[in-house]
């Protein structure tokens, strides 16, 4: 088996094109995340993979098996793909055990249900009905139900959207652990970058019906394909630069680049807030700035700065620091490599 592979996928609602050439690969056993703003088509992508929505072109294959190429479609029930929708969609007329055992042959049902109850930590609740469970418990049952049939691929459509923040974090970690333990291949759809970064082995950023970039969380964070991707994954300072080979000339002086930018041209570099270091004294390559705002965020301080005397810089720069900045003024230096991207507005 070689996981899920999608090439040139197109899909539509009526006459509206939703997916316009999606390329996506998820290796066997990987946890992938499709990240994108609402309306970008990520739910539709999931539903095409699951078999609930027809492709109009392209190819979706799981291992050697063709799932959909716009002409031939494998029915959803024969794909061996598990599905956990947003609010769980438990069968209201069945107990927890009935829900989990729904897809199992009668013979091995009780044994397997017990296994899964243990896996998701719901022992003893098998006799309950969905309306007697909390939101988190319902999602665990939905997960157990999807895992019960040992699907080759598990699809999760914003499964934590309806839960509160603390429970969401807890369940997310638990889900990742459970899936790794089960050795499952999974795709999670979300619009929450934190969820994506903490959950996945690989993240596909989706935008306007196609995948803008697919990479590991680290690569994606530090080496986004463009400014939009950079912003989607977290706060980013986009600084104009004169790119030349492995160097970028910026207001902060000459910075090493993460990758070769080729011949000399104008461009942007991404500087993550952690890369901006503040000092009280002027230094070579340091830019003077006024401190507009300083917020304590638990594990760090977020400091908003207004650069002075540099008309090439954006009016606002963000830095994260371990300590609060006591003064009204600071000098900004840049630490580490800068990542070159295209001007905002250019697709891909």
């Amino acid at each position, binding site marked *: 088996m070689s996981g899920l592979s999608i090439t040139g996928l197109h899909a539509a609602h009526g006459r509206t094109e939703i997916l316009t050439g999606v390329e996506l690969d998820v290796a066997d056993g990987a946890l992938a995340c499709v990240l994108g703003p609402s309306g970008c088509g990520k739910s539709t992508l999931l539903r095409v993979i*699951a078999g*609930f*929505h*027809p492709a109009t072109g392209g190819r979706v294959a799981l291992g050697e098996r063709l799932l959909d190429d716009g002409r031939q479609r494998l029915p*959803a029930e024969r*794909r061996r793909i*598990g599905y956990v929708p947003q609010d769980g*969609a438990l069968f*209201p007329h069945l107990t927890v055990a009935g829900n989990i055992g729904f897809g199992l042959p009668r013979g091995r049902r009780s044994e397997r249900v017990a296994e899964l109850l243990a896996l998701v930590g719901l022992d003893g609740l098998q006799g309950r009905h969905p309306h007697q469970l909390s939101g988190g418990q319902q999602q665990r049952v939905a997960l157990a139900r999807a895992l019960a049939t040992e699907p080759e691929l598990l699809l999760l459509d914003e499964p934590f959207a309806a839960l509160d923040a603390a429970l969401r974090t807890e369940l997310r970690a638990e889900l990742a652990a459970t899936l790794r333990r089960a050795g499952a291949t999974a795709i999670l759809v979300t619009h929450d970058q934190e969820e994506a970064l903490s959950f996945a082995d690989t993240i596909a950023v989706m935008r306007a019906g196609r995948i803008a970039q697919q990479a590991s969380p680290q690569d994606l964070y530090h080496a986004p394909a463009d400014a939009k991707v950079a912003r989607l994954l977290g706060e980013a300072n986009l600084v104009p630069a004169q790119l030349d080979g492995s160097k970028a000339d910026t207001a902060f002086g000459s910075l090493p680049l993460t990758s070769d930018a080729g011949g000399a041209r104008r461009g942007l570099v991404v500087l993550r807030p952690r890369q901006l270091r503040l000092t009280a004294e002027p230094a070579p390559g340091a830019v003077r700035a006024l401190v507009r705002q300083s917020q304590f965020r638990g594990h760090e301080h977020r400091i908003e700065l207004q650069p002075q005397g540099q008309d090439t810089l954006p009016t606002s720069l963000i830095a994260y620091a371990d300590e609060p900045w006591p003064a009204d003024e600071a000098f900004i230096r840049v630490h580490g490599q800068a990542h070159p991207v295209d001007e905002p507005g250019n697709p891909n």
Partner: protein
Amino acid sequence: MTGPARTLPAGRSPLLRWRAAGRLPVLPLLAFAVVAVVASPLVFVGVQAAQSGWDQAQRLLGRPLIATLLWNTATLAAAVTAATAVLGFGAAYLVERTDLPGRRWWTVALTLPLAVPEFVRGYSWVSLFSSVRGYWGAVLVMTCSLYPLVFLPVAATLRRADSAAEEVSRSLGRGPLATLWRVTLPLTRTALAGGALLVSLYLLGEYGAFAMLRFTTFATAIFTQYKLGFDAASAALLTLVLVALALLLVLLEAGTSRRGRVARRGTAGRRAAPVRLGLWRLPVLVALTALVGTALGVPLYALGYWLVRGSSTTLPSASVFSAALTTLGYAATAALVATAAAVPVALYAWRRATRLARTAERAAYLTRALPGIAVALSVVHFAIRYAQPMYQQPPLLVAGYVILFFPLALTAVRAALAQVPPGVEEVARSLGTRPLAVLLRVTLPLVLPGLGAAAAMVALTASTELTATLLLRPTGTQTLATQFWVYTSGLAYGAAAPYAALMVAMSVPPVLLLTRRTLGPNPRTETNR
């Protein structure tokens, strides 16, 4: 402005809060008043039955024929209820969950049989097919006329229900049929049970159609007592048996819907891609055409035949139009009153899920199992004693219709209330809105489409009612149904046909309203393929 401050411990219903605030419990009082009026025929039947002696009871109920009649009623009710459930659910599934071509058209066509008056339907079958008689004839004709009572609520549930559960089932390896059986069907259990209850209760008390179809049921025995014995006491005694059967059915339905009270209603309302019929498309289309053809085509053909061939057919005179106007006036008034009356009862039971509230609500259904003549005589009995000035005045006939068709209105209002998110009334109260304003600004607007459906259903049924109309109308008042009766009892079918045709034609707008209001908007984007 003191609203939030007056809040009592959480979890108490708004009603309790209102009472604690020193208000009259208006809603329960209204609800019980309505139930008392609607259930008054049960009291009448009880009092009348008590006048019949024990000996007479033994003689009447001890006859071997009674067992046969009970058997006939039970088997007929079982078969028709099962058949309407299968047809109603099947049609709703096809229309709401598959890629059947022309779904909107089918939705209306499948509901239209409601527009055919019962006596027209019975007569048309008998006159066209001499073989449609007896048990199977009765099953056929009643199924054709009653399945929309199941179709509509089930289709409404399917349209509103999120399809995520069905998709999950597919992803778990269950095919379309297994998913239909194990997920979709349970999802509609409440609606299915509610519709089946209306069907089966109606069958208990129906007489006229069965007489035409030469099938005797328990209700036949009751009519014999009224018609040939002029013996209301003995008739009431027998009617008590029907009431007992009705009670059984109501309890059965209550049990079913309580277990299924958590039918998910998707707020997101994502629609599944329709199930592809594939090779089944042609057989399914043939089957639906056959269903609509038998349920609608046969009566329409018979009507057309009599219009063209009956020698007594005359050009519709002015009396047709005055009868139509009268019919319209009564049906519309009855619809408004019945719907208004159903609101407090349904609201009370919805707000307070207590045993008392539920019992009151259920009691209203029992009346539907009574033969029409028993209900009409009950209204005569009470009105002449306690409301003499109203006797044989228009309000009395309206009251008769309301009592007869209250369960139909109640069912529709209940279904609408079930869609209201719990807690909205509390939220509105917490914003400082007074109870009546909450009702007017929040609750009623939310259930308004359901009220439209309730009114349409009552108007539809009331406009074709005959027995109570003859007994309760103001002297000299003519409706389309009474005129139809006048002519058919003189064998002048041609002269009767324009009245029946007009009844059917007038029923079409309420049917359209009914489908629209019951089902709500169709969220599915219609694609041609």
